């Protein structure tokens, strides 16, 4: 098992830059998520770790060894493809044993290893079936079998649950995470699904347009987004963004918006200009005591909670509140924001402004 270090890696396809100078470190045994919208460079990054693409520049270290320009076959990694890529002309057993056969392992030992992998995944009964007739979940398990059978340095997975039904996906996600916890193997997992990333990952890298926007634990990324993009991409509904203009000194703990004073975590840098006040829907409360008001324009009932959308002078605000609280469309309500959770963003650059809340998190990037 191994630690993976990516240093200043860049990938160009002709005139198009898929990944711009990226660096991050994946600790030994970590379940690591590469998250971002399609076309953000996450799959290219994964394929460079695998050796299916060679980086234009930069270094990739697996277990301390620089492998950037080595072919995939020499990297001792396992890759799980979105469409599984099981060899269609072989049965399940042959598929799983294929990577062992390439190493020239004796037949008896191959049999033993395949049996062990099948037992771990609970697919002993389908070993002699052709892969063509298998269900999505079983194909996924066979693909995993092919990955775990050779004890590789790490597992690389490219949206492995993307081809499964929503219902089954949840189950497989759990199975995957359990498998990882039992084997303790370093796993790099690409997904565009923020829920999947939060649910399964130890650490997350959020990418956009070939650039790493943020790198950290799911909690840090959710609570302390480093950029407006991250704040918007993670969380459903996403963070509320209230636009305002102000001049703030270091240490400022409040901002003025539409003649009302709203609290923020103490700033660590001065800022003057257009800003965005970012607050998550669950940190918005309806309170008649508050002077900052909005008009309810929609409510969405979600069982125990509801999402209430309000129009304010600084933009739309969504609040996630208990569904027993009354909220009627057309009503004017007071809004109370939990100031300690607020992140301010520089409107122009999209980056988060440093404060007591996110200090230490942003320096990762």
């Amino acid at each position, binding site marked *: 098992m191994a630690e993976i270090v990516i240093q200043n890696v860049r990938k160009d396809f002709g005139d198009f830059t898929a990944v711009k100078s990226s660096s991050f470190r994946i600790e030994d045994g970590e379940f690591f998520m590469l998250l971002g919208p399609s076309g953000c460079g996450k799959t290219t990054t994964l394929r460079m770790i*695998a*050796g299916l693409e060679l980086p234009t520049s930069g270094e990739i270290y697996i277990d301390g060894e620089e492998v950037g320009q080595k072919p995939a*076959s020499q990297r001792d990694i396992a890759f799980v493809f979105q*469409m599984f890529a099981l060899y269609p002309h072989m049965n399940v057993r042959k598929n799983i044993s294929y990577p062992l056969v390439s190493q020239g392992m004796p037949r008896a030992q191959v049999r033993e290893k395949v049996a062990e992998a099948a037992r771990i995944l609970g697919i002993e009964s389908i070993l002699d079936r052709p892969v063509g007739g298998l269900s999505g979940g079983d194909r996924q398990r066979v693909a995993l079998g092919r990955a775990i059978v050779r004890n590789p340095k790490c597992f690389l997975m490219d949206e492995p649950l993307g081809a499964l039904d929503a219902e089954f996906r949840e189950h497989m996600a759990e199975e995957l995470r359990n498998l990882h916890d039992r084997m303790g193997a370093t796993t790099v997992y690409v997904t565009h699904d923020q829920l999947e990333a939060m649910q399964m990952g130890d650490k997350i890298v959020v990418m956009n347009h070939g650039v790493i926007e943020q790198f950290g634990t799911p909690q840090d990324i959710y609570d302390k987004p480093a950029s407006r993009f991250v704040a918007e991409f993670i969380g459903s509904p996403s963070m509320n963004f209230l636009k305002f203009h102000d001049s703030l000194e270091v240490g400022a703990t409040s901002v003025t918006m539409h003649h009302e004073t709203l609290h923020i975590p103490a700033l660590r840098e001065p800022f003057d200009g257009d800003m965005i006040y970012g607050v998550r829907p669950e940190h918005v409360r309806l309170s008649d005591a508050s002077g900052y008001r909005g008009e309810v324009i929609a409510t969405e009932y979600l069982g125990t909670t509801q999402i209430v959308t309000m129009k304010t002078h600084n933009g739309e605000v969504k609040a996630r509140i208990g569904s027993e609280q009354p909220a009627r469309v057309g009503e004017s309500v007071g809004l109370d924001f939990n100031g300690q959770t607020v992140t301010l963003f520089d409107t122009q650059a999209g980056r988060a402004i440093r404060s007591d809340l996110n200090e230490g998190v942003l320096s990762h990037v």
Partner: protein
Amino acid sequence: MSSYSITEATGRQKWVAGVLVIGYALITLMPLLWILATGFKSSPDSIAYPPKVVFEPSLEGYVNLFTTQTRQSAEYLEANPPETWYEEIVHDKGMVIAGPSRFGERFMNSVIIGFGSTFLSVFLGTLAAYAFSRYRIPLKDDLLFFILSTRMMPPIAIAIPIFLMFRTLGLSDTHAGMILLYTAVNLSLSVWLLKGFIDEIPREYEEAALIDGYTRFQAFYKVVLPQAATGIASTAIFCLIFSWNEYAFAVLLTSGTAQTSPPFIPTIIGVGGQDWPAVAAGATIFLVPVMVFTILLRKHLLRGITFGAVRK
């Protein structure tokens, strides 16, 4: 009709369709059946008018096809009675067998040249198609168009330059020359057809093999080739049919050593004019290899013809 289904034909529709299909099949098969029948007719029966549909079968045509014969005097014939059934057929006409004909040789030429060029076309075509399908190649689209453009005029349009070129290079009337020529003609078909098939094979299979520790060539050989078997088989059939049946270049460029069956069969002349039963017998035997090859690979052929249209 009270109920109408778009998926299930009514009895009358099936009946009409059946008649149409059988009728069409009869029309297209008639020349083939006629050749098959003529091969078993005697010489007079083969040119009888009105044509004979019912006749006494004879192997005369086949014996004539494989032998050369000379006329002998009655005394000689009486002194040398026939020993085998085929000698007897010849004997009855007042002749004796002088030796084997050239047909066997010409047929072998067809086999060598036909299958040789098919193998070469498919082999080169598969490699080229794989490269075009998988690698970033500068001017890829232009190259592919150039390859296709070699088929935009009938090959015979360049017969004279080819003839002169072959004469200069010493390739006239050689097996190697004909194999090269047919390969050149077939290659564009083969590259395009196979590229379509290989494009359909997801790259992930090879990438999985690369990660499983195989080299690029092993991945191609062990994973891509089995997947492309359908495409390779149908491409091979198309290539074989072309080179097997090719007539014009064979007439022009071969005369002795490397002459194939198509130019040879029509030249079979018996005593006193064209020997139609022998010609028909030659044509019948000539059909067999392509038919057998096609039947062996027919599972793949349908998908070959509709390639790209049907998802596996």
